[in-house]
């Protein structure tokens, strides 16, 4: 497709330094690629698609990366771009990041999310099933769907609590908090999941076991210790607040006291 003349001087040429790793056990390294014809209107993933087309034409194995919804809701597009999870923009995932955030001639470093509990599978694809295991440990409520279940809307919930629970529930499990944290701590993710239920009456029944089990699983996976730097909150595409971590710490302490 010919490029409209007005756009022609906006088209960017980029140098990409990308982590390439054959498989989980192979030793990876940063590889350099040059990419021309990048429009500022492209999303970051579209830019990656263009790169992969070019690589395939050259007979080079395309870069493996995770993606699904491409609209900021599935949380799969994990990429560490120029030293930041999901790149330089705020409150967006990589699929929502646009190339207008970069300039012609830029060098862009693209790495997988790094944490011991997120091992690289291939190139930029990491295994985030540690999050699933944490969820399985307690991130649910057991509701008997016998037909006599009480209508959730019939249970009055304070507006402020409902809002906070909804905010916590917007966590998409992307792992940016872990990737960003200098300690690879998963506290923001786990605290969002704990808070979501802790704030609602439906979550009370299993509250004690939930926080103990989820934190135990988090620790067993090998995530680091939170030092309250607040980097997670800044890089989280959903703006999950540090308040949730404090809430989880309270829940955890009182659950330990209750035993």
């Amino acid at each position, binding site marked *: 497709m010919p490029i409209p003349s007005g756009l022609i001087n906006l088209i960017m040429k980029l140098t990409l330094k990308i982590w390439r790793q054959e498989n989980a056990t192979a030793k990876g390294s940063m590889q350099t690629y040059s990419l021309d014809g990048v429009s500022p209107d492209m999303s970051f993933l579209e830019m990656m698609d263009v790169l992969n087309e070019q690589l395939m034409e050259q007979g080079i194995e395309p870069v493996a990366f995770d993606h699904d919804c491409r609209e900021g809701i599935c949380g799969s597009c994990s990429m560490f771009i120029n030293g930041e999870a999901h790149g330089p923009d705020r409150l967006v995932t990589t699929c929502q990041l646009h190339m207008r955030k970069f300039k012609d001639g830029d060098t862009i470093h693209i790495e997988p999310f*790094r944490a011991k509990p997120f091992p690289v599978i291939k190139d930029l694809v990491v295994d985030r099933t540690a999050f699933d295991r944490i969820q399985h440990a307690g991130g649910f409520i057991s509701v008997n769907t016998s037909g006599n279940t009480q209508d959730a809307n019939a249970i009055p919930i304070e507006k402020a609590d409902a809002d906070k629970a909804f905010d916590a529930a917007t966590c998409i499990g992307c792992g940016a908090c872990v990737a960003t944290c*200098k300690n*690879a701590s998963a506290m923001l993710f786990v605290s969002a999941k704990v808070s979501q239920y802790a704030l609602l009456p439906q979550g009370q029944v299993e509250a004690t076991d939930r926080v103990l089990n989820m934190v*135990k699983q988090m620790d067993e996976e090998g995530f680091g*210790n*939170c*030092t*309250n*730097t607040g980097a997670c909150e800044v*890089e989280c595409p959903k703006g999950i607040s540090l308040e949730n971590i404090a809430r989880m710490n309270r829940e955890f302490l009182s659950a330990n006291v209750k035993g």
Partner: protein
Amino acid sequence: MSSLLSSTILRKVAMALSGIFLMVFLLQHFVINITSVFSATIFNQFSHFMGTNALVQFALQPVLIGGVIFHFVMGFVLDIQNRKARGTRYAVYKGSANAPWVSRNMLISGATILAFLGLHFYDFWVPEINYKYIEVLPEDPNRYHEELVHKFEDLTRVVIYVISFFFLSLHLSHGFASSFQSMGVNNKYTPTFKSLGKLYAIGIPLGFAFIAIFHFLNH
């Protein structure tokens, strides 16, 4: 204790509690020291009391030393674990984009304080122990102010102290508010705690620096 070592949150709470304990101690230390600026008599009275009271000497002092050791050992342990949790390091990591320097370098500011504590013990604690328990010299309730002023005649020492207080300030400017968050306190008072934290983190080290400089200039 085993759960303390296996649970990330309990480790953090222990870190916070020991940090708060040290901050309370530091405030007390400051209140006594500042008296040296305006009254040698009051300073001597306080110091004589602290130096000879059995509760202070044989209960509070060991607890304090234990608290300091616990705090920095735990600090190092947490840091080693946290480095391990990352695994492969990033080629490019832009920490400054999302977190202040002080919060990312508690180990550096902490290690500087530790080095300072070594000097500080050598300056005051070792001679005290020597005076009281090794040579067992007769107690002179008026000796303290003179000993203090004598230490700060040396410019090098004053400079090292002032630099250390600067790092203490950095450590506390993150540590104060951080310890509340670690213990689960994050509510409508958090902005107040943060302001109080800034006040403490600047005020106390600045005050200590003032005392050192004051005695240097007035000896």
